[in-house]
């Protein structure tokens, strides 16, 4: 928690490996997720099956340790009419949000990263099955780091809170309820800046044009 929303997004970007820290270093023990539900990583021309094969090859160890089976994964997607042969670009926004979140939850990470906007999505009615599955994964002694501004989300998924000052200095660290109280009493949240979401890793997408073609000769 912090009044400085840019700082929070930067923190999330550093943890995700998109930005290198200007000074210092951070170390993680165990597997670290990508920002949950983020729409990066897969080319829109790929099918759901191809995207799944790609991510599961890279995180095969996390898939093996998962409490959710691959069959369950496709069954849940089927409830939103998402088939393994569907192309990503053919999905409507609701289906895309659902697919990317489900894909992230399928893998069993030691630490899950949840950006603010995705936490908001997780608390919607449509995402209720995903919430249950995420709770199931977290029950297996896993951790989660979030910069969510939703207290409802924090109360459901977190038990500890850190309050940072505008320059990143640690003001409070401890029990979640105490952290929320501390934040409400001492930190002035600029609701307008919280609304301005920074899109983490928005540049990590492929352009549709195949630039290699222009390199011929």
């Amino acid at each position, binding site marked *: 928690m912090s009044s400085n929303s840019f700082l929070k997004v930067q923190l999330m970007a550093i943890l995700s490996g998109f930005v290198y820290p200007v000074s210092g270093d951070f170390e993680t023990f165990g597997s670290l997720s990508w920002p949950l539900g983020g729409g990066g*990583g897969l080319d829109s021309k790929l099918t759901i099956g191809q995207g799944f094969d790609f991510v599961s*090859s*890279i*995180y095969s160890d996390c898939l093996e340790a998962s409490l959710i089976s691959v069959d369950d994964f496709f069954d849940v997607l089927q409830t939103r009419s998402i088939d393994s042969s569907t192309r990503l670009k053919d999905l409507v926004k609701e289906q895309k949000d659902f697919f990317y979140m489900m894909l992230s939850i399928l893998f069993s990470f030691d630490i899950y990263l949840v950006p603010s906007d995705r936490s908001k999505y997780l608390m919607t009615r449509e995402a209720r099955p995903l919430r249950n599955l995420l709770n199931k994964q977290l029950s297996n002694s896993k951790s989660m780091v979030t910069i969510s501004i939703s207290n409802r989300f924090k109360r459901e998924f977190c038990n500890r809170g850190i309050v940072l000052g505008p320059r990143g200095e640690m003001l409070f660290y401890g029990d979640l309820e105490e952290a929320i109280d501390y934040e409400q009493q001492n930190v002035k949240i600029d609701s307008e800046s919280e609304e301005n979401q920074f899109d983490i890793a928005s*540049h990590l997408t492929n352009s549709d044009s195949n630039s*290699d073609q222009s390199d011929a000769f």
Partner: protein
Amino acid sequence: MMLINRIIKGLRRQWMIIVAIAAYDRNRQAAGSSLGSWESLIGPMQMMLFFIGMRVGFSVLRGSNKFAAGGSTDMYFNIVVFMSTGFCIAFLFRNVAIKSLSGLKLKAPLYYPRIKPLDILLALSLNDMRALATLSLAILGIVYYFTWSFRLDSPGLAISVYLLTVMMALGFGLSVVFLGRLNKWLVKIIKRLIQRIIIFTSGIFFATFEIPAHLRPFITWNPILHGVELFRYSINNEYPIPDISLSYLILCSILMLGFSLILYRTNESLLLDANND
């Protein structure tokens, strides 16, 4: 023992990541092309056929045997084998180097923290390597079938030269990516130079022994020429290769790759947004 297990496990995971990215790139290229999965093979093939057609066409115009090289290279090789051996080495370097030079056009997989920029470059190189190796093997097979004269005198040398060329191309491409961060025009100029210099000085169209001795130093500086000529020599050990040495190729490959890996180790973060070309 624990350390060895960890290294093996790490290498296996690294290999799986590279193979997954290679498949990812093939799938996305196939989805964007009417040729589907054949796209990665048809692209280089049409260029190779164009070069072979050009060379045979000149021979026909000159009035020499239309099925032969029409020159002294004719004594050692069929024209198609001669051209395809030159093409598969020179274009391997060209494709890998240009992909590296272009920075990371394929950026999306970097979203997953386990994937590093070097993995993408290796995966793209793997695809090029596979496509060109398949193409050259297919052409050699077809030519051997029609002429019924199978010949591969030093297969070990052929594989070594092929791998050394990949190493050199990766090293060269990576080094120039970082140098290009200083000035993007530098990259553009080098890219154009690679396209022209490789085609005309890498021995795709000629053999080194056909060049007069006093002119050879003007082309033998090019390590790709050494790769091409050694590859031909590995097929036919009677093929003369004056001023060509394997040690020069090894030296260039190791130096370029070593230098580029040092640059990569210290400047990896620059490659995350190197797509400004």
